[in-house]
């Protein structure tokens, strides 16, 4: 269970451009489910994903993952959790420019000290699973939108995380590629992964794979009872 208790996030606190992205949000997210945060742009979805994924710290409140409080952990431990527990799929994929698809997939596991041959094989296997093995040596900037996203998915899986976080994963995809994405998510769900997705795309929000829809507006939970 991911437990969020009275979490607030204020950017530029004390400055004229102070902005409250999240305001005393509390909720629980079941593991091995697909949870979708729904809401318009600027509602606080990405901020909430960042906080859950240990990419930022809340201004106040606490977050627990499997009853372990992560908000007060030092940076080193947060990195360790980020690496071992979470896999990230960013809105614009955020692949490393100039590196090949394979190198992008290998990147998260490089600091683990895994043997190169084994890491390369695992990366190729994941790319193969996503039908991208033929693009392994292509530079990330040469990939199409759908290919780039599948590389981003492969990268999120390389450290075998239990939770996948995806921020607006279909924002830059057409309907066909969005459907492909959902099909991959379904496979991951069946494998027992927890998926936390932020999206305002009806394709995702109305998808049968979503176990729970949580609507966020103006940094607050508007409705977390909706079920597909």
């Amino acid at each position, binding site marked *: 269970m991911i437990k969020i208790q009275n979490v607030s996030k204020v950017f530029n606190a004390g400055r004229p451009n102070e902005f409250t992205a999240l305001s005393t949000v509390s909720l629980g997210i079941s593991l091995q489910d697909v949870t979708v945060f729904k809401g318009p742009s600027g509602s606080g979805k990405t*901020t909430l994903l*960042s906080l859950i*994924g240990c*990419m*930022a*710290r809340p201004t106040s409140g606490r977050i627990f993952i499997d009853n372990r409080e992560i908000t007060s952990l030092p*940076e*080193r431990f947060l*990195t*360790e959790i*980020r*690496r*071992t527990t979470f896999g*990230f799929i*960013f809105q614009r994929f*955020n692949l*490393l*420019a*100039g*590196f090949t698809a394979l*190198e992008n997939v290998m*990147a*998260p*596991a*490089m*600091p*683990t*000290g*895994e*043997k*190169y041959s084994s*890491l390369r094989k695992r990366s190729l296997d994941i790319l193969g699973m996503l039908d991208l093995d033929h693009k392994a040596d292509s530079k990330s900037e040469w990939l199409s939108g759908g290919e780039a996203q599948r590389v981003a998915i492969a*990268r999120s899986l390389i*450290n075998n995380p239990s939770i996948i976080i995806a921020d607006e994963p279909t924002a830059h995809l057409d309907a066909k590629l969005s459907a492909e994405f959902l099909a991959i998510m379904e496979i991951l769900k069946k494998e027992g992964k927890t998926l936390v997705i932020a999206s305002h795309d009806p394709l995702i929000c109305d998808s049968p794979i979503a176990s729970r829809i949580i609507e966020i507006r103006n940094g607050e939970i508007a409705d977390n009872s909706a079920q597909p």
Partner: protein
Amino acid sequence: MPKSIERQLHLIDFTVGSILRRKGKNGALLFVYALVVFILASVLFFTRSLRNEAASVLANSPEIIVQRTLTGRCQFIPIGYADSLRTIRGVLSIKPRLWGYYYDGGFGANYTIMVPLDDTMKQGTIAIGSAIAKLRKSLLGDIIPFTGYDGNAQTFTVAKIIDHESALVSADLILMSEMDYRAMSGVPSGFATDLVLTVRNPREYATIAEKITRVLPDTRPIVKSEILRTYDAVFSWRAGIVLLLFAGTVLSFFIFSFDKATGLSAEERKEIGILKAIGWETSDVLAMKFWEGLAISLMAFCLGVLFGYVHVFFGAGFLFAPVLKGWSTLYPSFSLTPNINAGDMLALFFLSVVPYTIATIAPAWRIATIDPDSVMRS
């Protein structure tokens, strides 16, 4: 292989990929960086080698040389002065030397002509330095004509080509017999160019030099250590001039590299954010930046030193030679004996590699300690 080593290898692999992505930018940086190291290394190699050559020349030179002067100008010294010098306690031996210069108009070169102290050369024969042999394409048994002081030509047979570990010692040297030297130069018998003294106790040099000027007021004693000091000062001064000439280049480079190293581009900031987000620790990012800084600066250092070495020892330092050597004193040309001083190299290494590597890490550390979310948003 231990995981820590495997991790470093992964980071190095990633760094190399990262450097190769920006070939143009990093190539330009490497070129300018290597150029600066090349200049510094060339000056260091050149001055160090000249100093060593000078030390080598003087290694076997007499401890005290006595010259006769008249209104400050050198004159031939009467060999009979040796009798007065023998009265000074501590003087072991006194020998007259005959030497001078000869300008070879045909080849535009200046030679040093000398009579060996033990006068071992047979009359009519000469021993010539390797540079003269090369310049005149002379072989053993060849006959070389010289014009004497009276305008008459005199011919000599090359009996030996002098080889020495230091080219400077022998490059322009011609050895001949005393009879031949006097006939060619016109130095009358009973006179020498100077007198050389050996002294029993090195700590007495100064005292004996003082006594010489008292016994023979028209003479000037020259102590070896004074010559060494003079050479040292001259070459240090010349090296300083060259460095001053290039100070602008060096300064521009430091500003350029400081700007490059300390300011991260938006792309680099975002990349650090991504790496942190996907699970890299701050230490991983810093290690990557460390390898990046080290790779560029070490490569520049090695290239600069290598080209500096080739420039000085194989190219005769053609870029700085006019300033560092002077124009007339070291002709005919000679190759410097390769010589590398570990202290100089270490100083150059710490002045070039270390600051750049640190300057590369510092800005990355600032970014890497910020939440990845903030970095990626900015």
